[in-house]
């Protein structure tokens, strides 16, 4: 017997600053390659799906394969608009942070297809349980820009009354559940919400988001367990953007298997989807929604993408990954790809695109201006009374006394 000498293994990413980035090792399936099971298929017949990759848009911008959906060009343009608006908004508000107008900001760069496609694939009454990186859901659902900016500036008109960190929105009427800084802790709420809908014999379903890094949290597993046991009508989405602040997806287990494979241990269908492909996301979401509404329970969807920007305004990604890694990402940019498709099918052109971008940028600019007139962080805030409201439905003596002590 050889002398066993154990060694502690710590995974490391292939490339660090200074290295030439490459994703060649991934061997991604081409568009159209991964099969589309019947919506009512038994899970046990779909255990290959987590190792495939649902892709619709090919290199030429054509929609190919069994997942290619039938979407009206108007809807596609609507999706393009939501994505573009997200990106322009992100750019301007990120800059607003540099100018001291807000304390914090996070971009969705490269991930705009996800929230947009899913907001459009689901119904008005459905509820998403977001992460901080799905602004495009709100854009697709046409949440007023001014409310976003007021929230980000924590000013007098902040719809969340100055209580939340910027971008941790809540927008009930737009199917967008309250965000919080804690990772993963709302994943199980989506399952409970979906179970409640089933309990009431309603037709609404829930959609939960979680980052690939956050799938390590116990919350994630507990959510999957409840979803599996009670056949909760929901769609459970892992946004695998390959980074969790500075740690690569191998630190979350992504070197060992796919994130979609976590479905198998719960008897759930697991789909792995090109997260930069608007049409693939739309099609997979529709598939899972149809299944859920047919009382066949939850689906886990891994949306494979790349976090093209830094984690947040507090982050500098060049410290831990090659600065040109985003450019090497083989699945491209979601906006470019949808635009290319619309052009390919004769429903769009560069001119209209430029006009759209200009119009949206003006909308953003106008909203920022309007919010600035109310005030930016520290220059304007809601009434301090709001600090003491909504702790409980009705404040108790402690809050009343303390409010008085503060002289308000």
């Amino acid at each position, binding site marked *: 017997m050889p002398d066993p000498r154990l060694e502690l293994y710590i995974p490391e990413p292939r490339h660090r600053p200074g290295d030439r980035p490459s994703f060649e090792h991934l061997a991604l399936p081409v568009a159209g390659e991964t099969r589309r099971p019947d919506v009512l298929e038994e899970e046990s017949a779909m255990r290959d799906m987590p190792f495939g990759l649902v892709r619709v848009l090919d290199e030429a911008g054509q929609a190919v394969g069994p997942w290619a959906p039938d979407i009206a060009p108007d809807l596609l343009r609507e999706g393009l608009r939501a994505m573009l608006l997200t990106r322009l908004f992100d750019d301007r508000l990120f800059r607003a942070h540099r100018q001291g107008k807000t304390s914090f900001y996070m971009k969705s760069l490269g991930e705009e297809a996800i929230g947009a496609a899913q907001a459009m694939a689901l119904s008005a009454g459905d*509820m998403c*349980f977001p992460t901080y990186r799905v602004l495009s859901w709100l854009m697709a659902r046409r949440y007023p820009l001014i409310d976003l900016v007021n929230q980000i500036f924590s000013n007098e008109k902040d*719809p*969340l*009354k100055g*209580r*939340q960190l910027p971008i*941790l929105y*809540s*927008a*009930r009427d737009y199917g967008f*559940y*309250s965000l*919080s800084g*804690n990772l993963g*802790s*709302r*994943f*199980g*709420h*989506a*399952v*409970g*919400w*979906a*179970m*409640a*809908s089933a*309990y*009431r014999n309603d037709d609404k379903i*829930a959609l939960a988001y979680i980052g690939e890094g956050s799938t390590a949290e*116990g*919350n994630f597993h*507990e*959510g999957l*367990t*409840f979803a599996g*046991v009670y056949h909760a009508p929901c769609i459970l989405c892992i946004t695998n953007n390959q980074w969790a602040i500075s740690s690569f997806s191998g630190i979350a287990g992504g070197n060992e298997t796919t994130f979609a494979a976590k479905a198998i241990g719960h008897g759930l269908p697991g789909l792995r989807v090109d997260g930069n492909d608007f049409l693939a996301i739309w099609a997979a979401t529709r598939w899972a929604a149809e299944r859920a509404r047919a009382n066949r329970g939850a689906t886990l969807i891994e949306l494979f993408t790349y976090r093209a920007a830094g984690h947040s305004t507090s982050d500098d990604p060049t410290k831990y990954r090659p600065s040109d890694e985003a450019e090497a990402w083989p699945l491209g940019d979601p906006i470019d790809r949808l635009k290319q498709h619309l052009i390919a099918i004769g429903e769009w052109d560069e001119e209209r695109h430029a006009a759209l971008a200009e119009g949206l940028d003006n909308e953003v600019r106008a909203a920022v201006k309007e919010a600035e007139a109310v005030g930016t962080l520290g220059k304007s805030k809601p009434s301090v009374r709001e600090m003491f*409201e*909504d*702790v*409980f*439905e009705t404040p*108790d*003596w402690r809050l009343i006394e303390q409010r008085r002590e503060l002289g308000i």
Partner: protein
Amino acid sequence: MTVMNMIQALNSALDVMLERDPDTLIFGEDAGYFGGVFRVTDGLQKKHGLKRCFDTPIAEGGIIATAIGMGAYGLRPIAEIQFVDYILPAFDQLVSEAARLRYRSGGEFHAPITVRAPYGGGIFGGQTHSQSPEAIFAHVTGLKTVIPSNPHDAKGLLIASIEDNDPVIFLEPKRLYNGPFDGRHGEKLKTWAGDPLAEVPEGYYTVPLGKASVVREGADVTILAYGTMVHVARAGIEDSGIDAELIDLRSIVPLDIETITASVAKTGRCVIVHEASRFGGFGGELSALVQERCFWALKSPIERVAGWDTPYPHAFEWDYFPGPGRIAAALARVMEN
């Protein structure tokens, strides 16, 4: 009116609410078919149907997360945690989510959930079936914490908790389930029969949260207690022969500060009793509040009688448990001035 023990009273509260409000539903580990390891949900699945009262996976965090999601949808879920010792895996859900949802969403969402859990010691349950963690809930802004001491209050407070639109932690002193317990562990077990507080209306009624009950009026010293300790304190008063006023707080958030301060203003002395370990326990908050509000009335130091600052030790249950003797001694000490 029927004589009920605490289990029956709680069961009746749940039964009444399942009947009245189709948005209520109950779930927890072994809470469905079997009716709970302490039988509090006994018969409810059979009577109201599988979907109104069911078993859950063993994942306390998942149970609370599910309840919050249901609450956000518009239901009024009642979750059971099998022993409060096992609520800790759900602590983040309670603190970061249930307690904060209304505030952070500007009132768009809230969590009208009730979390029931057997609580406290005195049953030789060892370290993880005996703890009293109320202090860690009391510190969390946005949570309410209720602790009944008898069948009548248990039913009325539980209905009030279920109807409350804020998240409520409802702690059930398990040593009181089948009978009152005054800490004299050598004596024959008592049942609730014959106790006036075991006379429980069969239908709907509430006992409001935040309203303490003056269990015994007295002139010389105020005792603040809740749960099992209400009974133990009564025995301590008997043993001491001192004319103490005994207040059962019933809920620690909201806290009935008026009843407390009025009493100490009158008596000028105060003894605080709880089963939980002493350091950082809820007694500290009570002591601070009384001292802040009644300083000039105080004739002697406020005393705390509590569990020792050790884990709950199996073989030393009665050395650990703050019994009537320790309470009587504290009463005697405060009467020295």
